[in-house]
């Protein structure tokens, strides 16, 4: 067991290293940011000076090692554009993104899990079709379209929620719905197939044959076992949601990390982009690590038997 945990930790570290290489390499592909950071009137000399100051003249591998060394100690440098330490900017904006992602995921779970279960129980019926199509609609609309429609209907026409910005609980609803809609289909599908598999198990059939009501069977046996694959999916969905958050945050003027990242990529703000991706990747790896450990704790057989999906 301990061996497993250690192995997972080592894997996580390797993954983060890989992430750092990709992020670093990609950014340097985007080109030289110095021209963008200087005013229109800057002379060639100023450009050269800035390049030297930012350390952009050194060979790539030197820059990479420097980046890595500092990153490990928590220093991601100062954002080119904002002139503020990258980590500070992330610290200010990450809570907003986490709030949005958690709300979106929570909403998706609350809607999609029952939908998937119902669909499994009433397989191939009209209810199954309605539930399936219902959650699928959420995934079939581009997030920004859904978001703008939500604003138009629920904020402007009905006035129930604010149109944009982060102003307390009410303002979280529309963005969370827009964001979570995308995950609903996947989660419902997961719940449905997990439920189907469980329902086909021997002990469930036995319980039914013994006269235990469908209700009890469902809630006592099937759900508990169907929950396990859900645990894995939460970790993975988190990554998908972070991707969707980028657009949702832009639409709803939500002051999160996604918006910061978009801006940073467009301004070739190397330190900030590196910091953001590193943070998000670390978060993702951590969450999945925790989920995996929970999974293992729930069912220790898994360690030895299952092929990591």
């Amino acid at each position, binding site marked *: 067991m301990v061996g497993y945990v250690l192995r997972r930790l080592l894997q996580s570290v390797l993954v983060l290293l*890989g992430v750092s290489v990709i992020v670093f390499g*990609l950014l340097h592909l*985007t080109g030289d940011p110095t021209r963008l950071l200087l005013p229109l009137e800057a002379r060639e000399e100023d450009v050269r000076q800035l390049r030297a100051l930012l350390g952009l003249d050194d060979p790539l591998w030197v820059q990479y090692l420097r980046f890595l060394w500092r990153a490990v100690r928590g220093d991601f440098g100062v954002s080119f554009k904002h002139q503020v330490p990258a980590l500070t900017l992330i610290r200010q904006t990450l809570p907003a993104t986490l709030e949005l992602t958690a709300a979106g995921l929570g909403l998706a779970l609350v809607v999609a899990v029952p939908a998937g279960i119902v669909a499994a129980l009433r397989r191939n019926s009209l209810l199954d079709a309605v539930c399936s199509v219902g959650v699928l*609609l959420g995934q*079939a609309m581009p997030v920004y379209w859904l978001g703008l429609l939500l604003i*138009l209907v629920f904020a402007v026409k009905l006035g129930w929620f604010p149109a944009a910005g982060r102003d307390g609980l009410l303002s979280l609803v529309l963005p969370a719905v827009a964001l979570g809609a995308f995950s609903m289909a996947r989660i419902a599908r997961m719940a449905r*197939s997990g439920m189907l598999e469980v329902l086909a198990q021997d002990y469930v059939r036995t319980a039914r044959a013994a006269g235990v009501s*469908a209700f009890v069977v469902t809630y006592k046996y099937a759900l508990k076992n169907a929950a396990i694959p859900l645990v894995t999916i939460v970790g993975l969905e988190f*990554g998908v949601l972070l991707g969707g958050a980028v657009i949702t945050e832009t639409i709803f003027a939500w002051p999160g990390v996604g918006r910061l990242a978009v801006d940073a990529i467009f301004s070739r703000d190397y330190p900030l982009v590196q910091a953001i991706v590193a943070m998000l990747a670390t978060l993702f790896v951590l969450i999945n690590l925790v989920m995996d450990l929970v999974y293992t704790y729930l069912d220790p057989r898994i360690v030895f038997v299952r092929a*990591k999906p």
Partner: protein
Amino acid sequence: MNESAGAALASDVQPAAGVGRRRLSFRAVFGITVLLCMGGAALLAPQIAPWDPGRQMLLKRLRPPAWEPRGLREHPLGTDHLGRDILSRILYGGRISLGVGLSAVTLSCLIGVTLGLLAGFHGGRIDALIMRVVDVFLAIPYILLAMGVVFALGPSLVNVILVMAVTRWVQFARIVRADVLSIREREFVSGARARGNRSMRLLFRHVLPNALTPIIVVVTLELAFMIIYESALSFLGLGVQPPTPTWGWMLSDGRNYIATAWWLATFPGLAIMLTVLAVNLLGDWLRDTLDPRLKL
């Protein structure tokens, strides 16, 4: 327990809901019909589109669809802010959007399946390496990765396809690998091995056909994802560039007119929605009939 027995038992457990098990699923019918329509329209666009999709007719900007008071009969779905015919743009746009989606999925599938097969079949070091790479790609939010790459290389049709494929191949790799691992243990494979078949032939003749089921399902699901993905990139300004019409661009352009000229965004949005819905339903149906226990 084989699949069909499992399926039969599952439905036995349920109380009869009054709707018996159908032979022809609503999903399959809907999915295939819509896709055929979309695909057909896309292929036949040059023949059936009434106008050149790039032709600007500035005097006829923002005309509503033909059935509205200010609408014009020659523009059944209206015109956009530069006076271009919406119906024609939807038809031509379908070619690009569907084409991009299909290409991206194909590429993604090739990369992912290959790596997944390698990982699952060889195990050991290769497996560990490939899985770490998979983890790396999973850890980086795909949108940011895509933005970075497209930004670096410049937005073009090819780059968009490339980027979409490169950020999504992991979906295939994981599924294929899991499948391969379980298949590997089965009798007939060991038997074949004992008979001395070389590993590559083994891979293709025995392993791949059995792994086909999940691959097919994932292909459909990923196709749906790619279409949405393309529209997201267009929103960020990094999709296929104008004047090439794509549904994503049309929706993105039209989003400022939702309140005033609703037809600019609604029609491409509906096109996307229907197509994605159809593909997803088809994928669901495929999974159901082929192997409902697939955890996808």
